[in-house]
């Protein structure tokens, strides 16, 4: 015998389909209305022509695009290096903060002091301190300003990421550590094989979110001299008294962020699904 839906069920399906069509039509209509109103309000504004020529000038966009792209390449390289090292630093600091016992007091205190101070300190000030303060010491072999600026970013973001990792570590139930220890695993082994894999999986979405924020903040290195995308755009704006290069840089940043945001959403969704499957 093959299954055929009863008349009652067929009615339900038909009703739900009608409801879906109605919702879609309603959503399309309201989008069209809002879009039209916005377009009319903006393009009909008395100053629209001037805004259009100073923010959306195609020639200016074409002229400064290569410089901005060169800058963006610096942003991208900085992002990869800074994100990798800041994640590593954050993980190490978070693990150090979980160590128990009086022997580890200095390590723990140092790690705690670090996360407290560098989360409070504005990134701009840290960049100034590193990029101008350290060369000021006139020591032999002081690295390039670019390296110093990157170090400032890594050390500041490391403090944030350490707290995210720590939240993840603490979210793993103590019974998991008890189970690992009862099998004879040492604290280190329990941490490495049982706690950290679960902790990192749980905090992957906020970690990636911080990486998206980092992508914009690496540009602050231009305060120390290196020319990133925003700085390149700023130079263009200053030369022509036209704001279009900013718009170009902004669009490029959004495009750059899209893949990372997509990955974040995907990871978050997967984590949520796994958790629901577990209950």
């Amino acid at each position, binding site marked *: 015998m093959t299954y055929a839906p009863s008349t009652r069920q067929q009615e339900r399906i038909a009703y739900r389909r009608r409801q879906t069509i109605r919702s879609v039509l309603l959503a399309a209509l309201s989008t069209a209305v809002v879009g039209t109103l916005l377009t009319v309000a903006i393009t009909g504004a008395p100053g629209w022509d001037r805004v259009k020529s100073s923010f959306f000038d195609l020639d200016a966009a074409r002229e400064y695009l290569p410089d901005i792209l060169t800058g963006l390449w610096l942003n991208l390289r900085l992002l990869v290096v800074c994100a990798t090292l800041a994640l590593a630093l954050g993980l190490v600091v978070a693990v150090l903060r979980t160590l128990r016992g009086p022997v580890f007091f200095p390590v723990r205190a140092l790690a705690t002091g670090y996360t407290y101070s560098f989360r409070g300190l504005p990134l701009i000030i840290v960049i100034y301190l590193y990029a101008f303060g350290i060369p000021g010491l006139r020591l032999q072999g002081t690295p390039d300003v670019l390296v110093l600026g990157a170090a400032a970013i890594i050390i500041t973001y490391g403090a944030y990421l350490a707290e995210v990792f720590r939240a993840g570590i603490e979210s793993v139930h103590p019974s998991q550590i008890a189970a*690992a220890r*009862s*099998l*004879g695993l040492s604290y280190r082994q329990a941490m490495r094989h*049982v706690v950290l894999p*679960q902790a990192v999986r749980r905090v992957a979405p906020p970690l990636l979110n911080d990486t998206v924020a980092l992508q914009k903040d690496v540009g602050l290195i231009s305060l120390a001299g290196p020319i990133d995308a925003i700085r390149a755009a700023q130079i263009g704006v200053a030369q022509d008294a036209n704001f279009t290069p900013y718009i170009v840089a902004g669009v490029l940043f959004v495009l750059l962020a899209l893949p990372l945001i997509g990955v974040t959403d995907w990871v978050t969704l997967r984590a949520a699904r796994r958790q629901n499957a*577990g209950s």
Partner: protein
Amino acid sequence: MVLSCTDVRKTFGDHVILDGLSLDVAEHEVVALIGASGSGKSTLLRCVNLLEQIDDGEIRLDGTEITDPRADPDRIRQRIGLVFQSYNLFPHMTVLDNITLAPIQVHRRTKAEATEQAMTWLTRVGLAEKAGAYPDRLSGGQQQRVAIVRALVNNPRLLLLDEVTSALDPELVGEVLTMIKDLKGEGMTMVLATHEMGFAKQVADRVAFLDGGKVLEAGPPEQVLGDPVEARTRQFLARIIEAGRL
């Protein structure tokens, strides 16, 4: 004696859980700990596994004091298996990885050796086809059987079972109890905290009734469960019978 607890005291703040408790377990012996919630059954098992530090007394394993602060707890735990009420499998690992983790990391076996041993056990308990599955795909009874196998692959001298059937649906209790009975048949030395009086009767050589942080009464199951000496034991059993658990 495989296990020998003498005058063990354990407090949490002002709360005295174990108050001079003494208990000996001989080789191949199965001892069931019974008693009301909060009588210290689980605490005693956690103290024996050194997950909790005792506040006085001593615990010996094969004659060696394991509560000596100079002893290495990791080495001692390798010889004592502990199975928890809530299974505590590692959710990010497959069944096979859960089982082979300690043999590979702690006992330094090769992956092939550990896998072979794990598969032998899984086949024995009828879970071979679940080797690649994650714990959340298993029923409670299956998870608990995996947890027992995970403790057994370390070849422990002593297996501690902490209310291993309390979190299970009634129809899943049987499969776990059968497994424990088989282990008894092989001569495994076990201490189990339990609410299942019927099971204690079947599997235990000795039943110990915990009350006021001590073993108030211990002896063969027929005697302790059938004809207890102490008034407190009779009261406890009367409540259990009232609840329909005996």
